[in-house]
Structures are given as structure tokens and as C-alpha cells.
């Protein structure tokens, strides 16, 4: 295992920092089903880390473990050099981990703007009384955060739908709004669960661009699950491969692509 403070240089010349998130020997069971079996892997500062694997391999479950929604029966989660005690999901979120969901989990009854503002909850501190009277801090805070959110709206080019209720948006835009909501938290680690599922090439290209820009401009570490191998191979720095709850491969895209286990279990044919 590489040392925490090691950094390395990627294929295209970017420098990746030390270990940010370290999963050690994670095992997760649901009743009799072992969804994750003793998996260890790490995510490093500034990298784009992909998790791939067949359906039901336990990828989403792994993200859920990272975001504190599932609590593994065995194993440890280390975040930024500290062992993480059992935490509620919202506490994890406050540590700077944001995510999107496999089946879009937007707040359907709210406008796009409100959805994204919700993402900034972890930055809002004003008390209830101040809010009730809409005085001083509450109002100031609202405006400040609104500015931050507007920056993200501009970045993701969704200005036009700001006030639209999300329930009226088409799928692709919903995915983008979900990304915006996650970005609004200004996360250190961004978890994306199949951000490009159900998109056509054009939209995938857009999405890839956003992910790369986020990674580049804000230095956000990204972990993503994706089934489109083209995307995964192109944009990720390192890839973990899971199958039936086990880790069957871990490495750079080119390493993984040529790993026979991975080909057998997942890719089917060697990918170009």
C-alpha cells in the first residue's frame, strides 16, 4: 500500500496528492446477503476515482458506506488521516462529502434554486429566531449563499431554469441540478453515482466537461460510479473494479482495461 503522503503523477501529467479517504477491510451485510466483502481501497486528494463493476456488485453500497448511510459490519473508514467514528449521514456531509444519487433524489416539490440552496445547508448557521424575524444574520447569510449558488448555476449553465420546479425538468437537466446541489456544498470529496446514466453522447460529453472542470478548478476530489467505459477510461485517474462485493481490480484505466478478471466479469470484451 502506498504511503499516505505519497503523491503521484498521472498519465496526463497531473499531480495527485496523498490519501484522503481510506477504506480498510469494509464488509457490509444485509441480513444474509454480503453486499461488500472485505474491500480496501483509497481515494487521493485531487484525483478522479472511478468505481466500476456489474450490477449488484455493491458499488452504490460502497458510496453509501462512505456517506455514512450504511454502516459496515466490519472495517474502518479513514478520512484525512483520522479514523472516522460511526457517524450520521448529515455529520458526514458536514465534513465536506457531497454526492449525487443513482436514482435522482432531488426535492421534487422545490424549485431548482431552492434545491441548490439546500445543498448549502452545511454552510448556514443563523438561528431559528433570527430566521423567523428575518433579521440581521439570517438575511445576510441568505444573500451571501445565494451568490455562491449563482456562481454554480452559471458554471453549470442552468440560469434559465432557476425558478422552475424540478419536477418539470427533463431527466438530463435533473441530473445536472443534482450535481449543482452537490457542488453547492463546496465539497472536498464529491461522490457521483452513475452521473451519466440515461444520457446520450452529447450530454455525456457535457457532464464529463463539468466533472473535469470541477476537479480542475476547485480541486475537488471525485469518486464516481459509471457504466460507460468510454467515459470511465477517459476521465478517471484510477479505477476500482468490484464484482459480487469483491474487489477484482484497482489501478489506472489502462491497467484495469487489460486485467483479465475485469474483462471476464464486467467488460465482456476488451475495450478499445
Amino acid at each position, binding site marked *: 500500500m502506498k504511503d499516505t503522503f505519497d503523491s503521484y503523477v498521472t498519465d496526463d501529467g497531473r499531480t495527485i496528492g496523498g490519501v484522503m479517504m481510506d477504506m480498510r477491510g469494509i464488509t457490509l451485510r444485509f441480513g444474509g446477503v454480503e453486499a461488500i466483502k472485505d474491500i480496501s481501497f483509497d481515494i487521493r486528494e485531487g484525483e478522479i476515482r472511478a468505481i466500476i*463493476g456489474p450490477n*449488484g456488485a455493491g458499488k452504490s453500497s460502497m458510496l453509501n458506506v462512505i456517506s455514512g448511510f450504511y454502516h459496515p459490519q466490519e472495517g474502518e473508514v479513514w478520512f484525512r488521516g483520522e479514523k472516522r467514528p460511526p457517524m450520521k449521514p448529515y455529520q458526514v456531509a458536514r465534513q465536506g462529502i457531497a454526492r449525487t444519487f443513482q436514482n435522482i433524489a432531488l426535492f421534487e416539490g422545490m424549485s431548482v434554486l431552492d434545491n441548490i440552496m439546500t445543498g448549502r445547508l452545511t454552510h448556514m448557521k443563523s438561528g431559528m429566531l433570527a430566521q423567523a424575524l428575518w433579521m440581521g444574520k439570517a438575511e445576510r447569510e441568505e444573500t451571501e449563499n445565494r451568490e455562491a449558488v449563482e456562481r454554480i448555476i452559471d458554471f453549470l449553465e442552468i440560469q434559465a431554469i432557476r425558478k422552475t420546479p424540478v419536477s418539470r425538468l427533463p431527466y*438530463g*437537466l435533473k441530473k445536472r441540478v443534482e450535481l449543482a446541489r452537490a457542488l453547492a456544498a463546496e465539497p472536498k470529496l464529491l461522490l457521483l453515482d452513475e452521473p451519466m*446514466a*440515461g*444520457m446520450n453522447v*452529447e450530454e455525456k460529453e457535457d457532464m464529463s466537461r463539468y466533472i473535469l472542470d470541477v476537479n480542475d478548478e476547485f480541486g475537488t476530489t471525485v469518486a464516481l460510479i459509471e457504466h460507460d467505459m468510454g*467515459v470511465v477510461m*477517459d476521465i478517471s485517474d484510477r479505477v476500482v473494479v468490484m464484482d459480487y462485493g469483491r474487489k477484482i481490480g484497482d489501478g489506472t484505466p489502462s491497467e484495469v482495461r487489460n486485467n483479465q478478471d475485469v474483462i471476464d466479469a464486467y467488460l465482456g470484451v476488451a475495450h478499445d
Partner: protein
Amino acid sequence: MLDTTETTTETLLEVNNIEVIYNHVILVLKGVSLKVPKGGITALLGGNGAGKTTTLKAISNLLQSERGEVTKGSIRYRGDRVQDLTPTDLVQRGVIQVMEGRHCFEHLTIEENLMTGAYTRRDGSGAVSADLEMVYNYFPRLRERRKSQAGYTSGGEQQMCAIGRALMSRPETILLDEPSMGLAPQLVEEIFGIVKDLNEREGVSFLLAEQNTNVALRFAHHGYILESGRVVMEGPAAELRENPDVKEFYLGMSDEGRKSFRDVRSYRRRKRWLA
């Protein structure tokens, strides 16, 4: 992989210039026409929100329950106007839809899910169990999990379950909405392989809505491309695959071959058809 000449000329399903409005205000389809020939696989392609799902639901009459309605145009199946039938009638006539996002019955077991597919059948339990056997043969994974609640099975298994369930009605035409969504590449191949098998061996016709243009055009015989509620292009699949616009916008290929997703940052596209 296949050539376009093998499509027969008999038209099963004909959609003629339909217009669909949701909630009495949102105009989604603005005159869509298409034909599904007997024994063919017809692909309906297009970006998000293009109206693929809406088209399929208009055909299978599932729109009503979503407060949508067909306000213009006609839908004919084997020459009969079917717009005013119930979904049940349509299933009995052999048209069944596999919905986007799987929609399995979460609390029913896989086997019970499959059995619900046979709800409209009147040909006795013998025939039904024979078909159940057939489905299990196409999808051996389902046989393994037949006693588990569908809510706990993985995405791929649910997709198989949904298709298997549709097969149980002994359909003539299956309207298949985004079967590849969220599936691992190997599974996508597997499922499309099965679709092809069903098409060839059982003679089931497919109308296939897909985002994944690449795969869809590989397996389909004929394709329609939908954009903002209008058909902007149609033709035999092989031709579509060679069309430069389709190549660029739907297959992500440029003249030099496939672009890397890393490079997309450098240029902004524009929509040529709409401009």
C-alpha cells in the same frame, strides 16, 4: 451485423402525426409519425426530453395516468385505431410496454412478477408455465433469484425481470424503453442479444427507445431520431450509422474516430437541426 432488406413490408404499428400535451399545457410531441414493421426492431433515438418515452406511452395508452393526452393525429395497430383502447386491451392485442426505469413490483417475488405478465392470458396454466420456463431459459439469472423480492435485486436483474414479465403476455410487439439505462456494458450486450434472439426466434417486433445510440443502431433495423418532440431524421439503421451528423452528435465520433471525453472541454457544440 444485419442488413436492412430483411425488414418485411407489413406495418404493424403506425403513428401518424401525433401531438401530446401534458396537464393541458405542456406540449411535448409536436407531430410525430413513425411505423413499426412486423418482425423488425425499430429504434427511437434522441436526447433527454426529446419525447421518446412520451411516444411509447402514447402508443400503449399509459399517458392518461400521467395527465397527458394525445390531442392530434392517430395511432393504428394492424390498421385499427387504438388510441381509445385501455392498456389492457392493447396488451390483449399483443402490444406491451416495458417501462423506463424497470418498474418491477418491489414486494412481489421475481416469479410472481413474471406471473403478473400473464394476467391477460386466457390460454390456461399449462401454456403459461411453459412460457415461464422459456423466460427462465432466456434469463437464467432470474431462475436463480425467483424467490427473492424484486425490490432487493440489482438493476440488471430488475431489467431482465421487466422484459421477462412482458414476454409472459406472449406479445407481438414490445415497446422497450431504455433497456440499457444503468446497466453494465456486458449486461447491455446480453440484454440486446436477448432482444435480437426474441426478434429472430419468436418473431417479436420491437419499438426501442434508446439513448445509447451506438448499441441501438447496432441491433435495430430502422431508426427514427427525435428531437424536441419532432422526428428530425429517419432511415435504415445502417444508413443512420454512417450519417455524419448522427456520428458527431449521437455516436460521439468525429472524422478521426472516437473523441476522448477528456477533450470535450475544448469545444462547444451547437445544435445544427434546430439552428
